[in-house]
């Protein structure tokens, strides 16, 4: 019973990181190409679902001890904080700002505060999807 899943478990150990990297890529590429927080969050959740399919719920909870309800809260606080931080600078609610920075490895990069809002969307989508799937999957 334990050893019968060796092919899917070995495949998952490789494919999980590919899916997770693709999710991170699609999250950061959302500003200029299709993608963004929602698709990236759903893709991260599907990577976690692949882990849940290959292993069992208790193993995944021991490997990734996240409370997904708290992740929804963190995402909402991040989105609301990014939206309301513009009030402190005497501009209307939800005004975003961007600037160009010299980063050591990337060179000149434009950093936009909409990315923090998108990170909030990402965390809410991951938390909500994993909450739904875990609460349906584990019947207790």
């Amino acid at each position, binding site marked *: *019973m*334990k050893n019968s899943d060796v092919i*899917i478990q070995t495949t998952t150990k490789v*494919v999980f990181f590919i*899916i997770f990297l*693709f999710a991170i890529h*699609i999250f950061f*590429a959302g500003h200029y*190409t*299709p*993608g963004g927080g929602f*698709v990236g969050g759903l*893709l991260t959740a*599907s990577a976690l*679902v*692949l882990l*849940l*399919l*290959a*292993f*069992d*719920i*208790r*193993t995944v909870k021991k490997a990734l001890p996240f409370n997904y309800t708290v992740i929804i809260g963190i995402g909402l606080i991040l989105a609301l904080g990014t939206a309301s931080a513009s009030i402190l600078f005497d501009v209307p609610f939800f005004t975003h700002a961007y600037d160009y920075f010299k980063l050591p490895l990337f060179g000149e990069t434009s950093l936009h505060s909409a990315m923090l809002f998108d990170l909030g969307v990402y965390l809410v989508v991951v938390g909500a999807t994993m909450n739904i799937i875990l609460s349906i*999957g*584990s019947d*207790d």
Partner: protein
Amino acid sequence: MTILFWVSLVLIVVSMALFVYRLIKGPTAPDRVIALDAMGVTLISVIALLSVLVGTNLYLEIILLLAILSFIGTVAFSKFIEKGEVFDRGDSD
């Protein structure tokens, strides 16, 4: 060169229709799961040919996304057929 892509698109759509026949007709559940998996692959091919015909490279991420979703869906269906439940609780052992 464009006519080549149109011809391959028509051929792939015909093969997808044949997979739909197998999906409807298939006597057992694994037949239908494999038909769905192969339909995912043909759908990826359709999107790749369409991205060539439309002339954009923004569809390439959809191809990878669809491959991932098709793989996860097939794994979930296979585990449901094999064990009767999708997620193990992990309490038994």
